[in-house]
């Protein structure tokens, strides 16, 4: 996998770590955020392009749906691939996620190979 930056958004340090390990192992550079609000700070504060964003739903300060909606309002991030990774697994949660503008919805706990496959697919690699 060629290089590039990925943003991991989750209020759990362990989840941020685990997803970092998976993505670092395929050569990606990681930026992490504690919640949706922090994610906005990191996205707008980072120079250079973001390849993809992984986000949880339930977080303090700003939930995942709101984060995705805000990003989609900005023409610069309309097309940013976004994957939701959440414990919520009801159909309505997934629908809400896609309505907000997510590309993919994965239910925790993450299956590392599945995540890598999905990312390759989204990035066309």
């Amino acid at each position, binding site marked *: 996998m060629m290089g590039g930056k990925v943003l991991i958004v989750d*209020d*759990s*340090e*362990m989840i941020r*770590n*685990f997803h970092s*390990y*998976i993505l*670092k*192992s395929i050569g990606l550079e990681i930026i992490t955020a504690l919640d949706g609000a922090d994610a906005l700070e990191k996205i707008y504060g980072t120079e250079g392009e973001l390849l993809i964003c992984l986000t949880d*739903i*339930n*977080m*303090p300060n700003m*939930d*995942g*749906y*709101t984060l995705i909606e805000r990003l989609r309002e900005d023409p610069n991030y309309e097309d940013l691939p976004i994957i939701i990774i959440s*414990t*919520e697994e009801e159909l*309505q949660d997934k629908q*809400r996620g896609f309505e907000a503008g997510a590309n993919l919805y994965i239910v*925790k*706990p*993450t299956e*590392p190979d599945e995540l890598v496959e999905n990312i390759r697919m989204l990035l066309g690699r």
Partner: protein
Amino acid sequence: MGSIDELIYDLHSGDEKARAFAAEDIAFDGVPGGIKILIERLELEESRFVREVIVNCLKGLKGREIVEKIIPLLSSEDAFIRNASIEILSMQGEIATEFMRKILGDADKDIRKFALDILFQLKSLNTAELIAEALNDLDINNIITAVEYLGHMEDTNYTPKVNELLMRSDNILLRCTCLEALAFIGDEESIRCVNKMYPSYENISILEQYSFLKFVARKGADIHLSLIISLIAEKGQVMHKEIINAVEGILKRNPRKVLPHDLLNSLSYYLTTDIPNINKYELLILMGHYQNQEIYSILLQHVDHEKVLIRMGAVEGLGIYGNKEALPILLSMKEKVGDHDLLETLDKSIALLQ
């Protein structure tokens, strides 16, 4: 300030500001039934600004009533309200803890997860005990959360259970979480379990290598050094943070005057690779603690580096290393240097050598 009727009227005004001010006054002027009024408004409110004001007001109120009225909102379909409820309850202290006990038994796994989050934020007296109940939760995500939180809280009462989870789980995320928690709460038995599960480098899957290194950083010993040397050669560019922490941890717990030769070669090599400057800074300081001859030369080499952070590492390293021959070099550097932080480290090292 208006009467209660006026305040309620303003709470539904077309103007955001009026609604925000009304919410504040309803909360803090002790309007009877105020909590219920604010919660009802929160559910209808469309302005992000006013929603945040209402939530912030609710955070500022304390007592049984607020806990009782906010708990049902944990089941809200609205993610903003669900998560705001967690934040509000996290500030309620002992009263909330009492209620969380019951919520930990809820049929809905997501509600149980929220209870764990709230308990973790609350940090009152018996929260560890309650969080530990989730080590037996039916949902693996909640078990993982409980292990993570117990690790952060550094509560060693549940170490045996976490050891067991590590040994028996076939879920890699749970194993990683256990390893990282045991770095803080692990005991002798944990070390035995880890050495048994991962007798050699080949047995550790790539993802677990990171967590394994975190465990070794706090609980590892010299026997793990050769493994780390292999990792520096193979994974040094990706796991640099974890590798360096592991080396530092082991060396700290097993003091000696000189570094073993193979480790020194490995670390010197590491300095020449493409790891971030902050890690080179760290390595130079670490090396400064050991008296190997080669280390003195390495430190001197880096004192002229183009990156300030690396120069700082070399300067600090020289101060710690203690060879007074470095003094004239540092003194002459001081004349030419403009960077404030570098000057501070120069002063410190010069003082150490004088």
